[in-house]
């Protein structure tokens, strides 16, 4: 079951992705995924990463970047980012 907090985090992730990619015409039902969402290619990925980092005040090490392919995976990565993994 998704808690209210989890839903809030997923919404913040969704909004950060939309800001990063400047995707037009996206509503809450549009799936967002690396490789299929317009602009979320190899170049767009770092924009997504940086916007997520800004939103959540974390700095993710390079080895975690491939994990961040959609909203659930980003939420999971943020959840498992230990304080030691946060550079800021």
């Amino acid at each position, binding site marked *: 079951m998704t808690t209210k907090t989890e839903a809030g985090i997923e919404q913040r992730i969704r909004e950060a992705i939309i800001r990063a990619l400047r995707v037009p015409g996206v509503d809450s039902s549009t799936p967002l995924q690396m490789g299929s969402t317009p602009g979320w*290619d*190899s170049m767009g990925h*770092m924009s997504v990463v940086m916007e997520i980092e800004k939103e959540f005040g974390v700095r993710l*090490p*390079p*080895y*975690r*970047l491939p994990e961040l392919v959609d909203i659930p995976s980003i939420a999971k990565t943020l959840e498992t980012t230990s304080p030691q993994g946060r550079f800021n």
Partner: protein
Amino acid sequence: MTSFADLETVVPAELSDEFLKRLPYLSEGLGNPRLLPGASRVAFELRPGFEDQAEAVAGRISEVAFKLCANHRPGITKILAKQDSLPSTFREDPHPLLIEQGEIVEFGRGRFGLGPKLMALTEFFEVRARQMAREFQAEPRSFPSLIGADVLDRCRYLKNFPSSLNLVCHLREDHSLLQEFARSVHWDGKQLVYNPAASSGVECLLSPSVCFHWYMWLKDSRLAHPRAITALGKCFRYESANLTGLERLWDFSMREIVFIGPAKYVLNQRTALVSLSAHLLDELGMAYEITTATDPFFVDSYAVQAAYQNGFELKHELLAPLPYSGRKLAVGSINYHQDFFGRSFAIETNDGPAHTGCIGFGYERLALAFLAQHGVDEKNWPDAVRRHLHEG
């Protein structure tokens, strides 16, 4: 007189080489920059005529340090294959010995001619690299040394690596300008002196790599099946004060094997390339490491692009230790570009935009590393290489 730049940030140890390599591009007046202990201060000299620019140059140095370091994400270097043992006790710099033997001549910065022994050695590399290409059923191709500016624009090379570009121009089709050029052109000891108005715009550049031509060849197409090709080319990258003997040339020879198709196909070829490259370096009797690496992207976007490349493990380098300096030299690299070139050149597969990958061997660097480890006396070289020298 020595000037100093105080940095707003400490340059991390893993970035210090990358940082210092960027500094020669900051000003034509900048000489001998060095990072001082503590890694937050740079000492440098100013060449004659630039003495009044200390503050401006110091500001640029500080800006580069900030851009490289502020968004830096420490990456992990993975070692995929390794051979630690050096093949001999030879520790000399081969350059002076090769000059003495008439095996190399320096025509200018980053431009060297090779003699018969070095040619035979590079021919051996070529035979082996082509054998490797045949294992992948790679078709032989040939590409020009000139590459269209449109090609490099399409794959963002112009924006990602501006400092290494070599623009090509010709004289404009204008009889009076040609006459004036012929009357007045002369060499002033450093450069050609002529009226720049006689120069054309830039339609082509000297190609920095071999594989870009292949992607342009396939542009706007759909691949029915994965493809592999191989080509030998002259490549050109301007490296300013970093140009150092055969270690870092302006004009060098590269054999590439290039793969294009679905992601799984390209990744499988990459795995095979790591193992075949290790086998080749073993046959050459060399010490080496094959590790993950990053490209020297332009400073403004370096931190972000390097983090992506490192995180996705897109670049592997074949590093050979140079016993005379204690440094490691990249003699080749294995690159996986994901769908970057497939999207840039609109090349499709049944699974979506094509993925690409390649291996490139820099022959002059490989020859230097081989000679630095084995010595310049062919009697001490591995049997397979000596047999090739004598039997062809």
